[in-house]
Every structure is written in C-alpha cells, then in structure tokens.
C-alpha cells in the first residue's frame, strides 16, 4: 500500500525530516539523566547504600565532624557529621528518597486534580467552567508558600500530608493550561464527529480529550517536580514539613542554620547542592520533554 502523506507536500516533508535530524542529534537529555539516575538509585536502595542509620548518631563519633579530607575528619564519616553526630552522607541518601517521593507524589496529586478540573472546565463549559475557573483564579491569588504553611499547620506534619498540601497548592497551573488546550480540542473535527455520532460527554472525554492532553500534563509535571521539591524543602526548613528526625534536605538546611556562621559549611552546602542538582535536572528534563512531545515535531 502506498503510504504517503501527499496532502502535505513532499517538499515540506523533506524539509521537516531535515529539522527532525537536527533534533535527533540532541536525542537524549544526557545531563539530566547523569544527575537523576544516581539520585533515583540512592532513593531506591538507600538501606543498602547508606553506611549508617540516618536518624541515629554514629556510635563514638564527634559532633560536627568535618568531611574526611579536612583536618579532624575521618573516613568513617565521609561528608562529616551533624550536631547529633549523625552521618551527613546517610542523611543525604535517605533525604533523596523523601525529596523525590514528595516531588513525584505531590506532582501526581497536583497533576491529576488539575488535569481533571481543567478537562471538566474546558469541555463542559457554561457554569461549570465559570465556577472552576473562578476558584482557580482565587487559588492563584494566594501566595503558594504561605498557603502551604497554613495547610501544613492545619493538617500537622507528616510526609503524606506534605504530599497532599503540595498537590492542593500546585494544581491550578494544570487546570489553566489544560482548560485552554481542551477549548481548542473541543473544536477539532474528530471531537465534533464523535458528538454528532451521539457519543456521551464521558466517552468524548475519555476517548478523545484525555489522550490528547496527556502530553501537556506530562510536560507540566516534569516542570513542576522541581518546584514541588523546593517547596518541600522550604516547608521543612520552616519547620512545618517533614518532622525530625526523618532525614529531609530542607530539614537538614534548617537544622544547620544556626551553625552556618560558625564555619560549619558542610552542614548546609551538601543538602543545598543536592536540591540544586535535582531541581536543575528535572527542569532540563522537562524542557527536553516539552520539545520532544510537541506534536508538530513528533508527527514527523
């Protein structure tokens, strides 16, 4: 069978392939992968990798031991110890689990909530749209972090509460973007055809709308993960996030705040660098996804 896309013109296609070749050259996002894979590995196998229990002091170790290459350091605690003589490296490794888990789950909650509301709002229109969008507007007007602190004090500190809170704080972005997308999808001819054939709203949403907005949701999600990780760190830093002695990067920063001026730099720099790297990597990855999943480039 002749499989051609004659209607689009071969010249255009030829030019398109050429562009496709260019983007294929930067096919995989190497930098984000190099950063994220070790962190994900650490998060998954923390028990096996971490030399010590992150919540307990190293027996016989001193407080505030510097990293091993500095004077007074010891190879027993490679990155030093904190004010309770707990191993910083082990805390970082277990902290990766908390950060990634909260980042991913918070994004999932925000993404599902926002996408669902965005689809309902965009597809059903009318008063449903009005209500959802006014709520979204009001939500957007609240300062995210202050709102999160408020919710955190209401719900009490726990990791899963943080997930819920961050989901509730960050769904608005999805709702707005997805609604816009649905508004244009709703006018597509294949959606009209399904309606003309008598398809119910649920059917149209599940068969035609949802599959077409999932790309956007994925891209938004990869861009949100970083934001959620920072928010988690901020909440923990402020003392309303993951409760101690659970090892979380933000909490580590918070606990080290008082000693920062005393020259104990390793207490803050290591968790800070971890947050920076993970957020940077997820943002780069999100950017790559955005280009990769762009339907105009994907359909080549």
């Amino acid at each position, binding site marked *: 069978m002749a499989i051609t896309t004659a209607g689009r013109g071969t010249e255009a296609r030829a030019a398109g392939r*050429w562009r496709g070749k260019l983007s294929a050259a930067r096919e995989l996002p190497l930098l984000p992968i190099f950063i994220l894979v070790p962190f994900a590995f650490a998060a998954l196998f923390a028990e096996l990798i971490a030399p010590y229990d992150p919540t307990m002091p190293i027996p016989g170790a001193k407080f505030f031991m510097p990293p091993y290459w500095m004077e007074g350091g010891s190879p027993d605690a490679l990155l030093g110890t904190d004010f309770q003589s707990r191993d910083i490296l082990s805390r970082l490794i277990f902290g990766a689990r908390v950060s990634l888990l909260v980042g991913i789950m918070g994004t999932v909650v925000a993404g599902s909530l926002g996408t669902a509301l965005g689809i309902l709002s965009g597809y059903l229109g009318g008063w449903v749209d009005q209500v959802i969008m006014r709520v979204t507007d009001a939500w957007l007007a609240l300062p995210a972090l202050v709102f999160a602190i408020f919710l955190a004090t209401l719900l009490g500190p726990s990791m899963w509460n943080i997930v819920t809170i961050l989901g509730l704080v960050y769904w608005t972005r999805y709702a707005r973007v997805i609604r816009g997308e649905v508004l244009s999808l709703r006018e597509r001819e294949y959606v009209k055809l399904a309606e003309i054939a008598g398809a119910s709203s649920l059917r149209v949403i599940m068969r035609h709308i949802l599959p077409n907005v999932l790309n956007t949701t994925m891209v938004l999600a990869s861009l949100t993960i970083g934001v959620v990780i920072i928010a988690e760190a901020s909440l923990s830093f402020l003392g309303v996030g993951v409760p101690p002695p659970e090892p979380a990067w933000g909490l580590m920063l918070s606990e080290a705040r008082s000693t920062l001026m005393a020259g104990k730099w390793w207490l803050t720099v290591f968790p800070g660098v971890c947050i920076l790297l993970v957020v940077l990597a997820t943002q780069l990855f999100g950017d790559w996804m955005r280009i990769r999943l762009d339907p105009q480039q994907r359909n080549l």
Partner: protein
Amino acid sequence: MTTPYLEVRDLQTHFTTFGGSRVVKAVDGISFSLREGETLGLVGESGCGKTTTCLSIVGLLPPAARIAGGEIRLAGEDLTKKSPREMRRIRGRKIAMILQDPMASLNPLFNIYTQVSEPAYYHLGIRRQSLRRRVEDLLRSVRIPSPAMRMRNYPHQMSGGMRQRIVGAIALAGGPKLIIADEPTTNLDVTIQAQYLDLLKDIQQETGVAIIFVTHNLGIVAKMCDRMAVMYAGKIVECGSVRDLFGAPSHPYTKALLGSMAKLGSKEPLFAIPGQPPDLANLPPGCAFHPRCAEATQHCSEHEPKIVPCGQDWTAKCWLAHPKESLRHDHARA
C-alpha cells in the same frame, strides 16, 4: 519573436535529508521559458515540485534545499550564479511573488501605505510626495476604491479579496517584469476569485508583465494562461500552448487531469486517476507516472522517456509521443 525573458534550463533542485544521506529530487531537470507579457500555467498536484520551482527562481529555497544543476536565465543573466545580496535587488524589482494566503503575506502591524510603498522606496528610490502618488496609483490599479483613504488602513480592516489585491499592489510596486503567483485565489470565494482573475488580466494588459501562474486548478489555466507546463513528480511531463494541450493532450497524465475536471452542466462520470501521487523519495522506475497510467506498457516501467517535440512549441515526456522508429531503436539498444 523575441528571446524569452525567463529561461529555465535543466533546473535541478534537491532536498538533502538525514544529514546528506538521502537526496530528494524535488525538481529534477525541468526546462521552460517565458516571453515578456506571456502567462505560463504551472500545473500539478501537491508535492510535484511546482512551489520548489518558483522558490528556486526567486532564490528563496529553504536551507535544506539547493540548486544542484541547470540554469535560470532572467533577461540573459543566470540567477543561479547570483549572491543572496544580488538576489535581493532582483526580487521585488524584476521578479515579484504573490502567495496563497493574503493575511499571512501582509504584516498586521503596518498600514497599507507602508507595505505598498516599501518596494518602490527601496528598489526605485522614490521618496515623499511622489511615493505617495505612486502608492495611490498602485492601489487604484488594483481597483481599491478611494485609495488615499484606504492606504491609512491596516490589513485587518479589509476583506479577503481586498487584501489579496493589496498583495498584488505590493508585487507591482517595484515595477517587475515577472510575477510568480502561487495559487493566489485558493482562499478566495468564487465571485471574488473571478473579479481577481479579471483584474490580473487587466494589469497584465496595462503593464505587459509576464506571469507564472502556479495552480492545481485547470479552470484557472484555461481562463488565464497562454501556455502551460504540467508537472509530475519533479518533472515537466508536457508543455505547450493551453489550446493545444486542452484540445489534444499528448501525455496520459494531462489527459487524465482534464478528464477528472468536473464540467459545468455535464453529468458524465468523471475520469478518476487511480492510485496516489508518488512519494518523491521513493519514485517508481521508468516513467514515474506508469503505475497510474492507463496506457502504460512494460517498456514504460523500465525506461524513462525523453522529452520529445510533438508540435510547434509543444513537448511531451512520454513513450507514446516518441516517434515509432526511435522507440524501436531504443528497444534494440536495450
């Protein structure tokens, strides 16, 4: 008979894909010529290379494409040898282009005066009062009512037909000898299209400009053109006067295209060309049209026909048009 104003000889424009690993011959050795004041219809389906041909002539090929061979002579000068800087001087001054979508051809941020005056300003060096007069004349020549008032308008304040006439005025502004019109009426309503085509004819009579009319609509060719070139898969398969080709087409593709046209008031079944236009990256051997051709023979699927004359100023690229002796001769050689 004067020498042709534009002469395209054995033009080859190739698209390079996958970093040079694949070459698509969008235009593969076409030749045609155009005299001053003449209208040539360049006919073919999407993907046959007619747009690439035009872009080659004006030197606006996309980066993936390049002219691989042949020459384009405009008043004796070979355009393929020109630098981009020289081509900029030629575009607008000697060759102008009218594209399909008038909304996309006009910049929404500038008023009509600015856009129409630009070619005259740059290419002809007209300034101030005379520039204003020139723009008024141009707008009047494309039948824009009350031009002095209209030139202060912006594109969105005008209707589709009016916009396309403005695009025509811009094309005329530099006083070109050749206008390439790429499907200029596809987006217009039928009555507006008829008015626009009549207008183009009038302009041609007034200014003597030559026009290349790129279209897939044979009706427009019948109405507007003196000569036509039928393109298929990057090659010109038949070229001659419109009257000859409509009267007794030599190439089966021309014949089929004419047969597939719906004729007003006729209820006879249309002639449907079977199959699909070919993929240029994957052309059949021999004559590219043979899989869809009603009169194809074994010979056609193996050997590519040469361009042969079949009348005065009339050529076809088909084994059926070859004199019988040469066919036998070829057979013997094969």
